[in-house]
C-alpha cells in the first residue's frame, strides 16, 4: 500500500460508536462496511453490522443464511497480531465478535410501537389494515426514521430490553451518497409533516447522536471522476447539515507493480521490447524467440495501459486529498472479494489506522 504507517499507534476513530458507511453505487460500500466491522472486531470490540436496504448483502458476503430482523453472530475478528501491542489495550489475542442485523422498516415499526408505546395488539391491527405498509412506503421520512431509529437504539449505551447486547461499535451499511444526508437528517425530513409529537421528539434525540463526535460518516469511492465528484458533494452536504464527516476509503485501487521510474519509462516507450524478451528467456518463459518478442511487446502495452490508468488515478487521488479528511486505500483484489478477501481488506484498514 501507499505511505501509511504499518502499525498506527491509535485508530483514528476510537471514540466513534456509530460508523456510517456510504458511497456511490458500484464503489463497494457494503464490502468496506463489512471489512470495517471485521477490523474493529480485530481490536477486541464487539461490533454490530447493520444493513437497511433489504439486499441481504451481509449474508452473501459472510456466506451465512439470509439474516432475520434479529442480531446474529456472523464472524470473529482476527486476533491481534502476536508481538504487537493492541491499539485498544484489549488483551493480546482477544478478538471481538461481529454481529449482524438486517433492518427492514416494517419490522422496525412494529418493534418501535411495541417498545415505546406498548402497542402489541394495536400494532398488529395496524398491520392488518395495511398501515404498516403505508407508513413505511409513503409517509415520507418515516421510513428513514424507523431504519435509523433501530440503528440508534442498537448504538446507544444502556439499551433496554431483554438480553440486549451492548456493542462497542455499530457499523451501518447506509444508503448511497446521493441519499445519505437526507437519510441521516431525520428531524428535518420530518419537519414538514410532524412538527410536534413523539416521532418528532424521537427524531430529535437521534439527531443528537448523529451530530455528535460519537458518529462518523465514511465515504467509499473509487478513483474515477464521477464517484470522486459525488464524494465531494456528499461531504459538502454533510457539513452543511452539521453531520460529522469521517474518512474517505478509496476502494479498488490498482496494484503498485511498477514504481514511478518504471511507469515513466514504459509510458515514454523507453524500454526495449528485445531487452524484456531477453529477460523473459532468462526467466525460463518457453517458446521461440519470436513468441517471446511478441509477449514482450504485449507486456509493454499492458504496462502502458496500466501507467495511463495510474496517472488518471493519481489525478483523482489529488482531488480526494483536498477534502482534508483522513483517507484509506484498499486494493482491488484480482480474485474478487470472498470471506478471506474481507479479512484481507480488514487488515489493510487496521494497518492504516481506520480501526
Amino acid at each position, binding site marked *: 500500500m501507499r505511505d501509511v504507517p504499518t502499525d498506527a499507534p491509535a485508530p483514528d476513530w476510537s471514540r466513534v460508536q456509530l460508523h456510517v458507511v456510504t458511497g456511490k453505487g458500484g464503489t463497494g460500500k457494503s464490502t468496506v462496511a463489512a471489512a470495517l466491522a471485521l477490523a474493529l472486531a480485530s481490536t477486541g470490540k464487539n461490533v454490530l453490522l447493520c444493513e437497511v436496504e433489504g439486499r441481504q448483502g451481509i449474508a452473501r458476503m459472510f456466506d451465512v443464511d439470509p439474516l432475520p430482523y434479529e442480531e446474529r453472530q456472523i464472524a470473529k475478528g482476527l486476533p491481534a497480531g502476536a508481538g504487537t501491542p493492541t491499539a485498544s489495550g484489549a488483551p493480546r489475542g482477544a478478538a471481538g465478535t461481529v454481529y449482524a442485523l438486517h433492518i427492514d422498516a416494517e419490522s422496525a415499526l412494529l418493534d418501535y410501537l411495541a417498545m415505546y408505546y406498548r402497542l402489541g395488539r394495536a400494532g398488529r*391491527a395496524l398491520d392488518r*389494515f395495511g398501515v404498516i*405498509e403505508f407508513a413505511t412506503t409513503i409517509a415520507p421520512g418515516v421510513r428513514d426514521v424507523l431504519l435509523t431509529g433501530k440503528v440508534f437504539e442498537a448504538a446507544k449505551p444502556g439499551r433496554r430490553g431483554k438480553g440486549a447486547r451492548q456493542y462497542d461499535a455499530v457499523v451501518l451499511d447506509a444508503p448511497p451518497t446521493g441519499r445519505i444526508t437526507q437519510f441521516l437528517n431525520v428531524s428535518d425530513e420530518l419537519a414538514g*409533516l410532524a412538527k410536534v409529537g413523539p416521532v418528532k421528539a424521537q427524531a430529535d434525540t437521534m439527531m443528537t447522536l448523529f451530530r455528535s463526535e460519537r458518529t462518523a460518516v465514511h465515504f467509499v469511492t473509487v478513483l474515477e471522476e464521477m464517484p470522486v465528484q459525488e464524494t465531494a458533494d456528499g461531504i459538502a452536504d454533510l457539513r452543511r447539515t452539521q453531520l460529522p464527516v469521517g474518512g474517505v476509503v478509496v476502494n479498488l485501487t490498482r496494484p503498485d507493480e511498477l514504481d514511478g521510474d518504471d511507469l515513466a519509462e514504459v509510458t515514454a516507450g523507453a524500454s526495449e521490447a528485445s531487452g*524484456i524478451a531477453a529477460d523473459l528467456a532468462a*526467466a525460463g518463459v518457453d517458446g521461440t524467440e519470436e513468441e517471446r518478442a511478441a509477449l514482450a511487446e504485449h507486456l509493454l502495452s499492458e504496462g502502458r495501459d496500466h501507467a495511463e490508468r495510474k496517472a488518471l488515478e493519481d489525478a483523482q487521488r489529488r482531488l480526494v486529498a483536498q477534502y482534508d479528511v483522513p483517507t484509506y486505500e484498499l486494493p482491488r483484489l484480482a480474485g474478487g472479494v470472498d470471506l478471506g478477501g474481507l479479512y484481507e481488506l480488514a487488515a489493510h484498514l487496521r494497518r492504516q489506522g481506520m480501526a
Partner: protein
Amino acid sequence: MSVSSTTPAGPGSSSSMRRARHRVGALATEPVAAPHLDLDALISDPGTGIVVCCGSGGVGKTTTAAALAMRAAEQGRKVVVLTIDPARRLAQSMGIEELDNTPRPVVGIDTAAGGRLDAMMLDMKSTFDEVVESQASPEKARAILENPFYIALSSSFAGTQEYMAMEKLGQIHRQAAVDGTYDLIVVDTPPSRSALDFLDAPERLSSFLDGRFIKLLLAPAKGPAKIMGMGFGIITSALTKVLGAQVLTDLQTFVAAFDTVFGGFRQRAQQTYSLLQAEQTAFLVVAAPERDALREAAYFVERLADDRMPLAGLVVNRAHPRPDVDLSAEEALAATRRLEREESAGRDLYDPELTRGLLRLHADQVRITERETGLRARFAATHPEVATAVVPALSTDVHDLDGLRRVGALLTAPPAPRED
C-alpha cells in the same frame, strides 16, 4: 479521453504462438458462450421504437443509453433520449443541465444521414405535477399540489422516480405517435436499490392508492362507515400517539383530495405497462462483470420474462479485455521467481525489476479476466438465450459527444474473435 485497448502483438506472431502453445488453467475449457447482441441491428431496425436501459446502479446505464441514442441519430433516426441522473459534464455537453422537463436538441450531432437527437433530463416532481394537473380541476389540483403529503410523495416516495420515468415515456410516445417527432425513444432508468424497482413501481403506487388504509382514511370523509368500527378507533389513536393529530388530519385531507385522480393514475400505469410489453419495445439489461451486478441482471431478465416484456439482451460494461497472449497467471508468477534467482546469481539482465513488474501486472490482468469470464459464463449457462454485448472498461468517464461516439462504436463492435 482514451479508450482502453491492448495493442495486439503482430498478427502473425501471436497466432503462431497460439498454435505452438497449449492453454493451461481455467481458460483451457472455454465456458458457455452467449450469443452476440447486435446493437446496430437493434437500433437501425425501424420496428424498434423504444429502448429501455435498466440495471443496478454504477454500471454505466446512462452512458449506454446516451451513446446508443446518439449512434442511432447519426445513422438517420429521429431519436429522443430520456435520462435520469447524468454526470454533470455529460449533461452539459448534451445541453440538458437545465431541468425543464422538455426534450432539447443536442447540438454537435452529425445529421448527414437525416437523423436528429433530442435529450432531456427527467424532473420527477414536475412530471408528477403535470399528471395531477391533467387529471384534476384547477382548484383540486392546487389543493393537492400544496399538501405536504403530496410534496413528500412526489419527491421522495420510493418508486416515484421509476414511475415518473415511465409516465414521461408514455407522454413522449403518445406525442410522437401524433406528430411524428421521434421514431426512437431511448430511456435510462433511475439508479434504484434494485433494478426490479423499475417494474414494481407502478404496481406499488397503484396498490398503495388502492390500499385498505387509504379506503379507511377516506371513509370518514365519505360518511359513516360502520364496518370500520373498532379497528379504525385503534388505528387512529395509535397513529395519533405516534405521529401527532395534525399529521393524521393532513393525511386525510390529502387522501380525500387525491381520490379523484386515482383512477386516472391506474389507467395510465396500465397503458404504460402495455407499451413496455409491445413488440416495438426492447429492454437492454446493463451490468458490470461483477457478482452482484450480474445477479441483479439475472433477476431482471427473469422478471422481464415473467412480465412478458421483450428483452433484447445484456450489455456487460466495464469488462477487462482478455490478454492477447497465452501466458497464464501461474506461469507469469513462476517466471518472476526464476528471474529473481537469475538476478541474484549475477546473471546479466536487461531490466529485471521492470520485467517482473510487467509479469505481475499481467498475472493480475489474467486473474481478473478469468474471474469475469467465469461470472459471465455462469450467467450464460443459466440464461443461454440472452444475447450479450461485452464492452471494455474505459479509462475515463465519458463527458463529451466524442466520448459517446466512441462508446457507441464499442457497444456495436463485433465480438472479439474466438481463440480456438
